[in-house]
């Protein structure tokens, strides 16, 4: 069956050896995918993805924190002074106009997770202060100073009625 050339043909043998190594290693690498993928969020976690919030109980100047996908979301009923202030300033590190961040300038909706290392910032007179590493945010959730690279993230949301929003 095997001709003389196939038994005594070093190139052919080397080729078969490399092919076997490559296919074997490739197969082993692909076989780890189910293991890696199993560590990603499971479908029940992915399904838990929207949160509805009633805004009518939040007084002007008040802040309400809700959980969305397990993350804290800050909803601020901003006063007119606060609105005027955030309209007149910009963040230097991550410039973004307040109009782009708030659908209704009275209401600010941001994910309450510091963009540095994920702590929840505390409300301060100027906006927010992250106690973990000292990042400061203004009343539009924009980074003012500290190690955080970006503004507080705005989650996807829409106004269902004037006093009700749906996050997610």
């Amino acid at each position, binding site marked *: 069956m095997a001709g003389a050339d196939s038994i005594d043909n070093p190139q052919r043998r080397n080729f078969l050896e490399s092919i076997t190594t490559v296919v074997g290693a490739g197969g082993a690498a692909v076989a780890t995918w189910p293991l890696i993928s199993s560590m990603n969020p*499971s479908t029940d*976690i992915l399904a838990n993805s929207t949160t509805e919030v009633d805004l009518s109980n939040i007084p002007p100047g008040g802040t309400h924190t809700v*959980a969305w996908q397990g993350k*804290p979301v800050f909803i601020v009923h901003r006063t007119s002074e606060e609105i005027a202030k955030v309209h007149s300033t910009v963040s230097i590190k991550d410039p973004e106009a307040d109009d782009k961040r708030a659908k209704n300038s009275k209401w600010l909706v941001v994910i309450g997770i510091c963009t540095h*290392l*994920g702590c929840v910032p*505390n409300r301060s007179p100027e906006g927010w202060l992250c*106690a973990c590493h000292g990042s400061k945010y203004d009343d539009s959730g924009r980074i003012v100073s500290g190690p*955080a690279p970006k503004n507080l993230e705005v989650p996807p949301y829409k106004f269902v009625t004037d006093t009700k929003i749906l996050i997610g």
Partner: protein
Amino acid sequence: MIKNTIAWIDLRFPLSGFVKHSLVDYPTPRNLSYWWNFGSLAGIALVLQIITGIFLAMHYKPDIGMAFDSIQHIMRDVNYGWLLRFIHSSGASAFFAVIYIHMSRTLYYGSYRAPRELMWWTGQGLLLLLMATAFMGYLLPWGQMSYWGAAVITNLFRATPFIGDYVVVWLRGDFQVGDATLTRFYALHYLFPFIIVGAVMIHLVALHTVKSSNPSGINLADKDNIPFHPYFTIKDLYGLGVYLIAFSIFVFFLPDTLIESANNVPANPLRTPAHIVPEWYFLPFYAILRSVPDLAGGVVAMALSVLIFAAMPFLDRSKIPGGARYRPAYRLMFYVFIANIFVLGYVGAKPVDALPSYLGLVATIVYFSIFLLLPWVSMKEEKYLRERGLPAELETLIKEEEAQKDERRQKKSDRRHS
């Protein structure tokens, strides 16, 4: 009967040969000081953690609804549960204390130098494994510090280029640290100690190949080595007794000093405690992370601050045998480094606003400068010491080693050219 059994085994497995060669007759430098006790102490700390950990695992529940309460159950209801938990929680700190002293000894006496580079590098790997294990174990009580420590550290992986956000979600198995995170940390916290045991074996095989270093920094002649048993079994046992007394003081009288009070509050994903701090053994590295005013920069600086130890065999260019004992400039750098570690630890323990922000930055710069200046300082120092005149024996020794090195290099190039 016993003799016959051992003889039967020896025909099939090198049992008594191994014991004789590696434990009884194993040649050990006779001038080892008590600083050489910390290797075996680290082994005992590891065994204590594994034993108490296995028994704690019989009562612990890795579920976010039950984890916190199961710790209370262990503390109040399980027979001697309080003892198991306090040995385990204080044991983690004790383990790090022993390892840090073990590393300081290696740095002081120059034990990382040829031919012991692999001892140093396997040790570095062991340190990383220990850090990972301690970090994952710290999430299990599911208190506020547990939760926010894990949240911050998993977030460090956001600094991964391009796929950072996905990596963080993948590590956690959720958008925030949650049930999936707790369960996988538990599984890995149980696995890693056994990987550490394997790595310790490699560390010990390397040790038994190159043998222990000693305070003189010179490889001793055979007549200056003495058998491990009984001389060092008894010395290690004595050291163990002293260690266990100190350890027991923490376990029985001060167990709460090493547990952050905020961790007695169940984890709350919607509220970060006003002041979060890692365990004391991570404070210097945490201070470096915090001192760099940039996410990626901070993460890279922190990773480097641990990994840079591996470069020591390359950074130290001096041929003078021994470590700090015979090298005044290196000795000064060693003490500045240790003092600076304490400064960093202090900075890491304080809230961000409580200290002037430049303090951490200066200490971080000092930390890295010491490593980066070492090649230059060690060369200058060697030149100065040799010009001033070393003892004739030492000069001969250095020349012999250089000659050997040249010979090896010559052989290598001969082989290449032939």
